[in-house]
């Protein structure tokens, strides 16, 4: 704590130091009368002290929503979004992923979560006018090994997925070089990764996207049912670290979550998300849900690509014949809505058409 930052009467500073109050946090955490008692200063002095320290802590000036809308606030950038690499998916999200906050992608296995995350890792590397952030990504794997072959395949076919970007721009980006893969096998190594290694990459401007695939694996395994409180504590701390990273470096954080079966009445609690018609619910409970800015759920439908969009299915680059849905469960600026998408050889594409049935 820097007493030079604040303009205070030297007698006040001296009294505060003598009272062993060392940080701004302590000055603000103590009540007026308590501070008076400790420092033996008058009421007016203590009041002035707290206000001066408060002004030193909250340095950003008040901003109006109009200034924010016009993009006049450098510290709260809201217009730039990270594109998903597909115009249909972007329009579901009103432009893409916001730069500040945690976005969760929850879904059953083979729904396409990892595919979407890989596509984001590629999309972030494009110039801003194509919806990217001109930097790489950190991909933290906690479950299986990272599918490097698939990533290479995707990056070699970017020109097919993104025809609107000039070929020379696509060629100039060495996609695979800018994606940093980290492995974390347990909660401790995950925490050390996001508190030590990831900030270094972020502060050097090498990456502007952090993907955690997945958070469920670690938190569900290491904590038994009776350790609910301990798990909640770790989840809260983890979420707080991610939030502070996101805001320090204006970087979106994407977390992949698993789903579990919704079992009878025990999930009356979970039904508080308005997801009553779902057979599966995201794991990790309300503690984790409270930390999220946006929750997306992906799932496989019963529609096969052949039946529904035979024209599309005939094309050589459609893998996996089932159509999937991406649903917005909650977001501050989006209604509950969904769209269909497919996973093809060159990536994930949204589908605008509705099924005939």
């Amino acid at each position, binding site marked *: 704590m820097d007493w030079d930052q604040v303009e205070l009467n030297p007698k006040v500073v001296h009294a505060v130091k003598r009272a062993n109050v060392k940080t701004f946090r302590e000055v603000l955490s103590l009540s007026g009368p308590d501070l008076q008692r400790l420092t033996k200063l008058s009421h007016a002095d203590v009041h002035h002290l707290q206000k001066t320290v408060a002004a030193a802590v909250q340095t950003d000036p008040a901003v109006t929503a109009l200034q*924010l809308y016009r993009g006049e606030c450098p510290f709260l950038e809201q217009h730039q979004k990270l594109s998903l690499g597909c115009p249909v998916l972007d329009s579901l999200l009103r432009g893409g992923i916001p730069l500040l906050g945690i976005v969760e992608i929850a879904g059953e296995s083979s729904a396409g979560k990892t595919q979407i995350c890989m596509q984001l890792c590629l999309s972030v590397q494009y110039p801003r006018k194509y919806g990217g952030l001109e930097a790489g990504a950190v991909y933290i794997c906690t479950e299986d090994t990272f599918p490097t072959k698939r990533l290479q395949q995707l990056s070699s076919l970017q020109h097919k997925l993104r025809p609107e970007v000039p070929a020379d721009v696509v060629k100039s980006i060495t996609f695979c070089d800018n994606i940093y893969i980290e492995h974390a096998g347990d909660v401790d190594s995950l925490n050390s990764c996001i508190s030590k290694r990831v900030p270094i990459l972020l502060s050097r401007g090498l990456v502007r996207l952090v993907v955690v695939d997945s958070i469920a694996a670690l938190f569900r395994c290491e904590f038994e049912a009776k350790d609910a409180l301990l798990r909640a504590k770790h989840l809260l701390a983890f979420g707080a670290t991610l939030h502070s990273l996101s805001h320090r470096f204006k970087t979106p954080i994407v977390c992949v979550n698993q789903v579990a079966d919704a079992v009878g009445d025990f999930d009356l609690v979970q039904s508080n998300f308005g997801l009553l018609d779902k057979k599966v619910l995201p794991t990790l409970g309300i503690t984790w849900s409270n930390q999220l800015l946006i929750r997306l759920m992906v799932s496989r439908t019963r529609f096969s690509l052949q039946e529904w969009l035979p024209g599309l299915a005939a094309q050589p680059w459609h893998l996996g014949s089932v159509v999937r849905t991406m649903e917005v469960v909650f977001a501050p600026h989006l*209604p509950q809505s969904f769209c269909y998408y497919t996973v093809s050889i060159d990536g994930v594409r949204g589908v605008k058409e509705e099924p005939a049935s």
Partner: protein
Amino acid sequence: MMQRDVASFAFAPAVKVRLISAGFLTAKDICDLRPTELSKEAGISQQEALEVLQEVRRGPAEQGAAESRLTALELLEREQALGTVITFCSALDQALGGGIPVGKTTEICGAPGVGKTQLCIQLAVDAQIPGCFGGLGGQAVYIDTEGSFLVERVVDVATAAVQHCTLITKDTEQREALQSFTVETVLSQLFLFRCHDYVELLAQTHLLPDFLSQHPKVRLVVIDSIAFPFRHSFEDLSLRTRLLNGLAQQLTQIASQHSVAVVLTNQMTTRIGQNQSMLVPALGESWGHAATQRLILHWEGKHRFASLYKSPSQREATVPYQITPHGFRDVQLPDPSVTPADPSLTPSLNSRKRPRGEEGDPSDA
């Protein structure tokens, strides 16, 4: 006033001790002295003596003594004159006795995605509705701790509110008021503060009184959410309780001294009962006493409900609501006898009921 004890004044403890041990026990003993005399007698510095004399000589009105007595009727009239901020959901407004009360603190609890931030944004726009439309014509302060304040949503809600007022404009007074009630002015009168942790929130609360004095037109202060910064990094829960209590006190004081409605949002947490788990508001039992009124938003199946749980003046009630592209609204049941109306434009401002057939929203819902 002359009989007032020296010990009851707000001097620094050391100064008080010196005055009392020098024999000055009441205000009368001090007020006729000169600063140099007082400082010599009591053994305090000239500066301190001067401050003491200034304080003692101030009239009772300036000493911040208890306010002059009011009758209960006068209090009631004062309260009603303060007004309320409507929510645009008439069922909820009715349950609240008009809307969110100015001069008091209201807590809004709910699970993620149920609509707390949506309601807060709606209130921040509604506080600005001009008086002739039944609003307060004030400004709003929004303190965001979670990062969920996205300006594009505010634009949606503001546009819908302005459109609604435009559609119900009847007389010249309203037409004139509309000149200064546009989406741009609404955005320009919404002040945003961003707090990333509890220290910043504490700091912001210390700075708020001065800000409100400089901006006397502010009628609403929203803190979204108060739970988020307090739910982690507290090994010592008693410290957290103390900080939250202090914050609650400061906010209650701010609400009444500056005539603003203070709205706080809280998260929900799971409480494990004997054989079932329940969702309860976060931040602990003692926090339950912090706000004057408590509103809990919850799901029942696919429908959303707002329950008024704690209020000194209103009955407990549960009403349905929905979130539309236009904001926080009533749930309108379809009436087959009338031409289908746009269900997202239902609020009755100022109790002026418009026949349903007239409500038309040019834009898509």
